[in-house]
C-alpha cells in the first residue's frame, strides 16, 4: 500500500467531511438554538442543488450559480421557517420529527413536479475540471480541492460570525437561555428566522457544490441527513466546533473504511465476502463510533456549556 493511495483517500475523506460539516453546522445551529429537530434539512440540501443548479445553467456560469444560490436559499429557508416550522417550536421533539418527515415527502414530490424525475446535470467551468499535481507525486481533482477550501473558509466564517459578531452573540445567548434572552429584549422570532436561513444556505451550499460530482437528484439529501445527525450527536448538539471535528472524523473513517477495510478483511475472509462486506461494514463503523462515544459521553464530545 503506497503513500499516494493513502494520502489521496485521506483527502477524499476530508472532502466528504467538509460536505458533512456544511450540513451538520446548519443542523446543529437550528437544533442548538431553536431546539428544533428538522428532518427536512436534507430537503434543503436537495433544493439548494436544484435551485442553484438551475441558476448555474441559466446564467451559464457555475460560480454565478453558487453566488446567486445564497440569497435564494436565504429567502426560501426563511419562507419555510415562517410558514411551516414556526408552529413546531412549541411542540415536543416527536411532533417535530413527524411533521418534518411529512415535509420531506412533500418537498421530494414538489421537486419532481417542477424539475421532472431525471435530476439535473450541472457542468463545471473548464478551469475547475481536471486534476492538478499537489506534490509527493499525487494528482488530485481540482474541484475537490476547491470544495475543501470552500468548506474551511465557511468554517472560519462561522467561527468569526458566532464568536466575534453581535449576531453571533445573540445566537449564543439564545442557545444558552432562550427565555432570558427574550426577556432581555432580543427579538427571538427574528433571530430564529435568521438562524434557520443561515442553516438553509449552508445546506444548500453543500448540495450545490456536490452536484457537479454526483448530479442532483430527488431524495439526494436523505442519506447525508442521517450522517449529519450522527455527526452532530457525536460532536455535541449546538456546538459548531464539535460538528467540524466530528464531520471530518466521520468523513475520513467512512472513506478510508471503504478503501482499506476489504484489504484488512482479506486477512480473515474469502475474497468474495471481503469485497462486498467492505463497503457495507465501513458504513457500520460510523454508527459503532457514535454508539461508543455516546456510551462514555452521552451528550457528545463538545456539548455547549450552560445549554438547557
Amino acid at each position, binding site marked *: 500500500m503506497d503513500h499516494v493511495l493513502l494520502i489521496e483517500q485521506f483527502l477524499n475523506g476530508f472532502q466528504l467531511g467538509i460536505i458533512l460539516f456544511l450540513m451538520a453546522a446548519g443542523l446543529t445551529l437550528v*437544533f442548538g438554538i431553536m431546539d428544533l429537530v428538522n428532518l427536512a434539512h436534507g430537503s434543503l440540501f436537495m433544493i439548494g442543488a436544484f435551485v442553484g443548479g438551475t441558476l448555474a445553467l441559466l446564467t451559464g456560469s457555475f460560480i454565478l450559480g453558487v453566488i446567486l444560490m445564497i440569497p435564494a436559499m436565504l429567502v426560501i429557508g426563511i419562507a419555510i421557517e415562517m410558514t411551516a416550522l414556526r408552529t413546531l417550536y412549541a411542540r415536543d*421533539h416527536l411532533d417535530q420529527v413527524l411533521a418534518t418527515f411529512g415535509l420531506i415527502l412533500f418537498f421530494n414530490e414538489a421537486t419532481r413536479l417542477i424539475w421532472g424525475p431525471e435530476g439535473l446535470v450541472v457542468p463545471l467551468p473548464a478551469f475547475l475540471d481536471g486534476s492538478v499535481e499537489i506534490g509527493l507525486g499525487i494528482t488530485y481533482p481540482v474541484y475537490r480541492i476547491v470544495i475543501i477550501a470552500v468548506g474551511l473558509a465557511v468554517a472560519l466564517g462561522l467561527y468569526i460570525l458566532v464568536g466575534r459578531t453581535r449576531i453571533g452573540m445573540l445566537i449564543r445567548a439564545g442557545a444558552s437561555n432562550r427565555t432570558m434572552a427574550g426577556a432581555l429584549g432580543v427579538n427571538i422570532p427574528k433571530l430564529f428566522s435568521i438562524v434557520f436561513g443561515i442553516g438553509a444556505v449552508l445546506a444548500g451550499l453543500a448540495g450545490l457544490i456536490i452536484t457537479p460530482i454526483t448530479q442532483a437528484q430527488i431524495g439526494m439529501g436523505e442519506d447525508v441527513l442521517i450522517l449529519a445527525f450522527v455527526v452532530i450527536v457525536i460532536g455535541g448538539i449546538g456546538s459548531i466546533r464539535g460538528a467540524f471535528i466530528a464531520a471530518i472524523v466521520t468523513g475520513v473513517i467512512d472513506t478510508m473504511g471503504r478503501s482499506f477495510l476489504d484489504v484488512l478483511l482479506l486477512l480473515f475472509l474469502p475474497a*468474495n465476502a471481503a469485497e*462486498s462486506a467492505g463497503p457495507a461494514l465501513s458504513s457500520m463503523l460510523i454508527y459503532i463510533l457514535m454508539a461508543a462515544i455516546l*456510551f462514555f459521553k452521552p451528550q457528545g464530545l463538545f456539548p455547549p456549556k450552560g445549554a438547557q
Partner: protein
Amino acid sequence: MSALTCLRNPANAFTALVLLVFATGPVVMPLIGEPFYVIVFARIMVWAIAAVSLNLIMGYGGLISFGHAVYLGLGGYAVGILAFHGVTSGWAQLAVAIGASAAVALVFGAISLRTRGVYFIMITLALAQMIYFLAVSAEQYGSDDGLNILSRSDFGLAFYDLNDQATLYYTVFAVLLASVGVSARLVGSRFGAVLRAAKSNDTRVQAVGVATYRYRLTAFVIAGVMCGIAGFLQANLESFVSPDMMSWPRAGELIFMVVLGGMSTLFGPVTGAFVFLMVSDTLAEWTIHWHIIFGPLLVLVVLFARGGIAGLLNRKSANG
C-alpha cells in the same frame, strides 16, 4: 359499562369497525369482488402488531424509538435465512426470531436507555442502521435485493398449515388480538404504572426508589420480541424479506401509525395502521404523485390532530 354503551363512544365504534373488517375480511372481500384486499388486510394487521409493540414503549413509556422496524427485519430474516438453509420448521424459525429479537433489544436497549430525548431518538436510529447495513452486506442472503422464501413455516401439525391462506390470515389476526391483550395487561399492571410514571417524571419515580432503567429495558425487550413475531408473520405473508423492511423510513412510518391512531391508547396503533396504510394505498392508486398530498396530510395530522384518530373522535363525542 355495557358493550353497547362503550360503542357509543365514536373512537371505540371506529375501533370495533376496523376489527370487524379484519375479522370478516376473508369472507366478505371475495363476495364483493375484491379478493386482493384480503392480502392487503393481512399486511395491515402485521404492521398493526408492530405498531402495538412500539406503542408499548413509545405511547406508554415515552421512548421514541426510531429504530423499531429493525425487529421486523430480525423476525423476517430468521425465517428467510433458516429457510435458505433448508430449515423450514416453524418452531425453529419462531424460536430464532424471538431469541434474536430479545437479544438485540436487550443490547440496544441497554445502550440507548442511558441517553435521553433526541439523543435517544438518534441512537436508536443509528443502531438500527447498523443491522440494516449488515443485512445489505449479506450477499449470500440477497443483500439489497432481498431473499425469496420458497416455503412457509412448517409447524408439523396436520391441522395447522400456514400454506392455507385462511389459516395464515387468522393466525395474524389472533396474534394481533393477543398483542393488544398483552399490552393491556402490562399497562394495567404495576409494571405499566411505573412505566407511565417514568414517562411523566422520571426523576420523581427514581426518587421514590424505583429503578426505572430496569423497567424500561424490560419493556424494550418485550416490545422487541412482539415486533420480531410480527416480522416472522410478515415473512410468511410476503414470502420475501429484504433490508428495506427495516430501513429508517419504515421506522418513521411505524411511529406515524402509532401517533395517527392515538398514542397511549390500546387500539390506537391498530386503527392508526389501518388508516395510514389504506389512505396511502388509495392515494397511490389515484396518482403517482401521491406524496405531495400525503406529506402535508401527515403534517396537518401532527399539527391539528395530536391525539390521533382516538383524540379526534373523542373530542367530537365530548362536544356532543
